[in-house]
């Protein structure tokens, strides 16, 4: 297990370095002169050169990268062009709302997805299965922003039960978390079904039946426990879709999170913020997958007892 964990950690390091280089180069990939961009359209040539010096853009690119990395480790992500506040402040303020939104979305999506998946797998080719799987493929095909708008129209505007946006109370979480989680619930349901169906074909399931165990014990005890191993890995990858999806959903529900900040920054061409956000999202995603791998190791005794 320790070996497994160590190996995974070692694999993450080169990816982190490559990701940081990628993001560092990000600003350099923008067509045009970054210094002019930062200085603004109507800055004089002197101003632009001043900005260039300030940002260190006159130095060789490797040195710029080293400086950039040093700053990163000190938590210095640069300064927002729009608000003139530090990027880490901007991001720090928005991080938690997005974090909680994704966590709640994930929780309900996994719970619902697992339930639907297990029911579909055990009631194979019966109406429960058809209903569950048609629901899942529909969930996969729904444009989330449209679903969000429709839910607002129904629950906030027409019925007035829930707030249409913002983040004021626990009620505010319901609609965005539901919307954001729909796609993931669909994927989890489909994957759980196929994984469990594969497991139920295994020889050890037949062994269980030949021992006289009942179907409930077979499905939940022997089947699901094994089926969960691939489901966990896949769920980790779904976090990516949640983080990405949050950008859209936050825009629909005026959620004060990272996603909305990102869209505003893209509109304003606030590159330091975009750069910082990309880094944070990538870091979070990599970390989550590391945790998922750990969970995978715990669930799979072949890795745990190596």
């Amino acid at each position, binding site marked *: 297990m320790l070996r497994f964990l160590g190996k995974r950690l070692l694999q993450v390091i080169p990816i982190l370095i490559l990701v940081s280089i990628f993001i560092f180069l990000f600003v350099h990939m923008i067509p045009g002169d970054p210094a002019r961009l930062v200085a603004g359209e109507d800055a004089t040539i002197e101003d632009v050169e001043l900005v260039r010096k300030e940002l260190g853009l006159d130095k060789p690119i490797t040195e710029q990268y080293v400086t950039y990395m040093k700053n990163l480790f000190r938590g210095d992500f640069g300064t927002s062009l729009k608000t003139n506040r530090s990027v880490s402040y901007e991001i720090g303020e928005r991080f938690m709302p997005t974090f909680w939104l994704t966590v709640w979305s994930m929780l309900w999506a996994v719970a619902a997805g697992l339930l639907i998946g297990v029911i579909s797998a055990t009631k194979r080719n019966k109406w429960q299965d058809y209903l569950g799987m048609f629901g899942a493929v529909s969930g996969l095909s729904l444009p989330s922003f449209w679903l969000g708008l429709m839910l607002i129209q129904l629950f906030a505007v027409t019925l007035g039960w829930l707030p249409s946006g913002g983040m004021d109370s626990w009620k505010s979480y319901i609609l965005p978390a539901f919307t954001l989680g729909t796609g993931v619930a669909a994927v989890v349901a489909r994957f759980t079904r196929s994984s469990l169906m594969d497991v139920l*074909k295994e020889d*050890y399931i037949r062994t269980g*039946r030949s*021992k*006289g165990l009942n179907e409930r014990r077979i499905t939940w005890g022997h089947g699901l426990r094994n089926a969960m191993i691939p489901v966990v890995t896949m769920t980790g990858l779904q976090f990516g879709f949640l983080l990405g999806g949050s950008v859209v959903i936050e825009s629909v529900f005026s959620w004060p999170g990272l996603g909305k900040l990102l869209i505003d920054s893209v509109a304003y061409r606030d590159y330091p913020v975009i750069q910082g956000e990309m880094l944070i999202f990538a870091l979070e995603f990599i970390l989550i997958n590391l945790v998922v791998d750990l969970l995978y190791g715990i669930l799979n*005794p*072949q890795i745990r007892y190596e």
Partner: protein
Amino acid sequence: MEEKVLQVRNLQTHFTSDSGTVKAVDGVSFEVGKGETLGIVGESGSGKSVTSLSIMRLLKDTPGKIAGGEILYEGTDLTTLSEREMRKIRGNDIAMIFQEPMTSLNPVYKIGRQLEESIILHMKASKKAARERSVQMLKAVGISRPEKIVHEFPHQLSGGMRQRVMIAMAMACNPKVLIADEPTTALDVTIQAQILELMKSLTTTTDTAILLITHDLGVVAEMCDRVVVMYGGRAVEESDVVSIFTNPKHPYTQGLLESIPKIGERVDRLQSIPGNVPIPSHMPMGCKFAPRCPHAMDICWEKEPSFDKVTTNHSVRCWLHEEVPQDESDLVGSSER
């Protein structure tokens, strides 16, 4: 004659798919007595494994269904039991071990837990008693350090060890019948010898009847008291083991015995049965073996022979050993049309 624990009478198991119904098992009958070992031999598609799954009523994951016949366990017809009643029989009265020891144990649970599961279920034992029984069973199947093995996962054991665990698991609740479906096919020869030896010693100490399903005639000769030979879903011959090997009546059994190379017997060329193992969807109407039979007669293509006793101790399904009924002798002529 001693009491029969398991009697199978005219078993029919059919598989339904969208292209029709296939009679995977069609008219198989046999009996097993206390402490007796009955071998069911056959090649792929002969229906021998389906027969064993039918007895256990484990056809759930297949498109198969028992379509007729009786399976009498100590007088009760298993085909009429509810699923709940059947669960009480499985693992308790009739236990089973399978071909693939590598995949027949659940990879995520420890050996101990998998053994205790059925002991707790059937013997209503406490956890502690079940653990003791597990360790005792592991010791009985020749595993040294059983106290340690109960804490290990299947992937930490070798194939031979896993098959021992499977046997321990099957024998834990003192079943009256043990169905062993190709128990040594996946194992190496020296390990196979160990497992066969173990099974032999278990039957002598426990009086359990064994239904041994295999394709290996060597294993049959070594282990069994009686033998059923299956071909194309039918039982074609049944007798005591010595008669089958020394005086086979059915051309298929004869061909099979002649086609296997035997250690110590040098022949330049092996006899062989021509043709292919039959495909269930392309069975000839009469005797299923007719296309490969060196003695095939017209009647063999017309009508399937019945499974009849030729001596008190020997049954065979073949026209060579049957009087052609008078009134149906027309049929023989009619085939010339």
